[in-house]
């Protein structure tokens, strides 16, 4: 039963829960959270078990309503989509465990139920984009998750509706461009099914409509992924959204864009088209290199921690884009590992920012000092570890994803990209060190209230276990994924690679 339905299960589960929550939690508001958590936990379990199933038995196809492709809509769970669904669902689960307290703190009680319903719709959209094998269906799910995200951003602090409005405008343009691209593709090929298109496109060759279609689709998802210079919506949206939203969006949202990029470029258009016919890969690689430098430099100038993390996301998306644009096996492995890595560390960092807001009432870098560390030693330690992974120091996973990206650059003979990767490590070091140094070494400006009473100066007020444990789990996962990265790469990521990316052996 489950095996054939496996691809459709997570998105439908979320969609169903999203509708169930307003009904079921009508009387009992607290139920909303637990329903959301249960759905996410179930989806994570399904997604993780699917990885093993797919790796053993090959891709699973599910035909909606029994209609065979290319007429009907097909859901496909291949190693790539199985990997991405696992990453996003597991991270969402961890973040949701943390979210209960921050949502209680950030939102009035009346908004809890719709909030969790929207979270479920967002997850349905994310999962749908990843498992569907139909380009128009991608658009539908894209709009589902985007609409949910606009709402999730808009319930943040005072400025959040403005940030959400800007996000909405750009998101709508991105969606429309993508739709236009799909239109061109359909006009020239007569199909919307990815597998079908993969067979048709080589026959069509380098026709202008196909190239225009690719350009519009990339433009659309470049906007969703916040690939430089299309990142304009991201910093405000991440900064002003409530903690729970930004810690769901940052690790997951941009990854979906990256996934669709990989899917379109490597699995539909194919390696030959994006490197030989049109220089799509090269353009993405250069834009990504610019994104890495731009995001890192902007991040240095920010005073609000969440805003710094947002610009750092722009840079990190650049790493993923660079790996995609290198168009060789190791670049792509690096990009995929970085999807996992960035998901874990960005989630961890945003959770810590949330912890700071919870206990200190702010997350401004210029107001952080030893007092914060003294009160929240564990959160600070998690932050430090995630920062080390950001910089790319072994044995955290950040080191290894950069290792593969650097190797991919060298294989292509792209010394500029190698230099960008290495220099950006130092830039990351600068802006994270700025924070870490304050946390550990900046003496508290005002003597804390408790110091007057002498011995009670070392007052520790760490966040509760439901917030602390997710943070620490993510931090520990960074170490574990780093040490075990060879297993992940060999066991999963290498099996994702599309045909044509040979030369896998070092």
């Amino acid at each position: 039963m489950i095996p054939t339905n496996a691809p459709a299960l997570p998105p439908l589960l979320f969609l169903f829960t999203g509708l169930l929550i307003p009904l079921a939690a009508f009387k009992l508001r607290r139920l909303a959270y637990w329903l959301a958590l249960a759905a996410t936990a179930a989806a994570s379990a399904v997604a993780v078990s699917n990885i093993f199933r797919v790796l053993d038995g090959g891709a699973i196809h599910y035909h909606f309503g029994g209609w065979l492709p290319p007429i009907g809509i097909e859901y496909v769970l291949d190693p790539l989509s199985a990997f991405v669904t696992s990453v996003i669902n597991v991270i969402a689960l961890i973040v949701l465990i943390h979210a209960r307290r921050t949502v209680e703190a950030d939102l009035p009680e009346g908004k809890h139920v719709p909030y969790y319903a929207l979270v479920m719709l967002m997850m349905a959209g994310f999962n749908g984009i990843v498992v569907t094998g139909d380009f128009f269906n991608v658009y539908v799910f894209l709009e589902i998750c985007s609409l949910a995200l606009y709402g999730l951003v808009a319930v943040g602090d005072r400025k959040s509706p403005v940030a959400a409005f800007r996000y909405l405008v750009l998101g709508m343009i991105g969606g429309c461009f993508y739709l236009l691209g799909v239109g061109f593709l359909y006009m020239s090929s007569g199909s919307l099914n990815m597998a079908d298109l993969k067979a048709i496109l080589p026959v069509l060759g380098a026709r202008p409509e196909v190239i225009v279609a690719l350009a519009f689709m990339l433009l659309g998802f470049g906007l969703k992924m916040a690939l430089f210079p299309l990142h304009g919506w991201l910093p405000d949206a991440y900064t002003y959204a409530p903690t729970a939203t930004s810690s769901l969006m940052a690790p997951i949202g941009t990854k979906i864009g990256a996934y669709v990029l990989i899917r379109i470029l490597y699995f539909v258009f194919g390696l030959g088209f994006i490197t030989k016919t049109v220089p799509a890969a090269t353009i993405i690689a250069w834009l990504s290199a610019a994104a890495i430098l731009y995001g890192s430099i902007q991040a240095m100038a920010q005073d609000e921690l969440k805003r710094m993390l947002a610009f750092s996301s722009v840079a990190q998306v650049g790493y993923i884009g660079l790996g995609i644009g290198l168009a060789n096996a190791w670049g792509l492995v690096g990009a995929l590992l970085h999807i996992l890595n960035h998901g874990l560390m960005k989630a961890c960092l945003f959770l810590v920012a949330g912890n700071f807001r919870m206990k200190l009432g702010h997350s401004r870098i210029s107001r952080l000092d030893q007092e914060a560390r003294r009160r929240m030693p564990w959160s600070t330690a998690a932050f430090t570890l995630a920062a080390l992974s950001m910089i790319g120091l072994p044995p955290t996973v950040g080191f290894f994803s950069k290792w593969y990206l650097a190797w991919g650059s060298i294989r292509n003979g792209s010394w500029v990209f190698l230099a960008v990767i290495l220099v950006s490590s130092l830039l990351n070091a600068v802006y994270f060190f700025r924070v870490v140094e304050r946390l550990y070494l900046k003496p508290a400006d005002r003597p804390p209230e408790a110091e007057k009473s002498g011995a009670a100066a070392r007052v520790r007020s760490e966040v509760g276990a439901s917030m602390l444990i997710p943070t620490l789990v993510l931090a520990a996962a960074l170490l574990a994924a780093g040490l075990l990265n060879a297993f992940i790469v060999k066991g999963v990521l290498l099996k994702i690679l599309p045909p044509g990316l040979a030369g896998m052996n070092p």
Partner: protein
Amino acid sequence: MNPAGVFSSLIPLWAVLASLAAVPFILLSSRRPNLREFWTLAAGLVMFGCVLSLLPAALRGQTAAAELFEVVPGVRLALRADPLGVFFALIASGLWVLTSCYSIGYMRGLKEHKQTRYFAFFAVSLSATMGIAFAANLVTFILFYEILTIATYPLVIHQETPEAIRAGRKYLAFTLSAGVLLIGAAVWTYQITGGNLDFRPGGLLAGLTLAGKTAVPLFLLFLCGVGVKSSIMPLHSWLPAAMVAPTPVSALLHAVAVVKAGVFGMIRVTAFVFGPDLLRRFGLDTVLIVITVTTILLGSLLALRQDNLKRRLAYSTISHLSYIILAAALLSGPALAAGLLHLAFHATMKITLFFCAGAVAVSLGRENVSQLNGVGRVMPWTMAAFTIGALGLSGLPPIDGFVSKWYLGAAAVGGGRPWLAGVLVLSGLLNAAYLFPIVQRAFFRRGVGLEGRREASAWMVVPLVLTALLSLGLGLYPNLFFDLARRAAAGIFGGF
């Protein structure tokens, strides 16, 4: 090295983990200083014991190898205790035991804050040093190299004064940049060799046909990567700045573990990654010789101008580290053996001098050379030990510094570069010029304000006397280290 000489053993792993395992215990017993220091000492002894147990095999030319899991496809996290590694590990772990005793006296004598953090990161640093000594391939090496960078940072900024924080920033800026370059170099090597990064005596890249436009930039990347920690000029300026750290840190890390890890990395790069043939073909050995000779002489000259005792010793360290790299750059068995001897002997002498500087600072609160008049009368043991160290660094018999310099000079002459012997003599004179005035001030000038002052506590005096005696003893009986160094060098350049 033939594969027959390699046997599987987990002892290198235990040596690495010994002090890492002590960290939780140190943290947990933060409120009970005696118990906490017991863990440090116990870890030190266990680690030293592990390394000692590897010694007989290493003397026979055998290698204990512990292969763990794969970290990058084709490259495992692997430890190999080859004679070279055992040599370095022996020095670092042996001196850690003494430094731990000294640290206890020093930290308590000055009533330093955050002693738990201090001892915990000290233990992590030592683990990383062991890892560097035993690393079997570049990835493992980089792993521990970066851990060392991070773990020593809290030690450098221990005082948390603005000056210490500035020094810490400088330290991180230098070492992290170097780490990044080293990673770049390693990835490049990975690409060139097709996924093999194992250190191999005679050179990992030796069998490959490398064009000059690949080999030279790659070597320069490596040189900058490991050159910062080994503080060759012009990459040295973090080391004097890092002297704001507590003296035991300066003594062990900035005279033995960290900087020697850099030097050790340099040996690994020259002898195990590039190999003598490749370096000679592109004239890279000459580049290295020019850099090191410059560093030796300039470092000594700059040391003359320092009034702060620890900074003077830091510049002296910079100059002496280059002796060892110079020996590696000569690309011959006898030279490398002499360099390794200097790696060991400089450690014993320099740690003595730093211990003395720390003892003076704790007991008298004086840190500048110009304040040391008459100190020898109130602290005779300390200053006697200082004298032994000073004699040794200047290369006078019967202290061990004489032995290593002698062999190094002989190897330089034997290698067809007799002018290097002249450099060594000149630098010996400079060493004498910046160290003997201190001895002279301490014993032959009348000081003020010394009434009622005494030696520092026994925790400090005993270790420093022991290291001084060790310097003397190794000067008289250098055979153990000599055999080990010959064995290590023979593995690379063949018997001699």
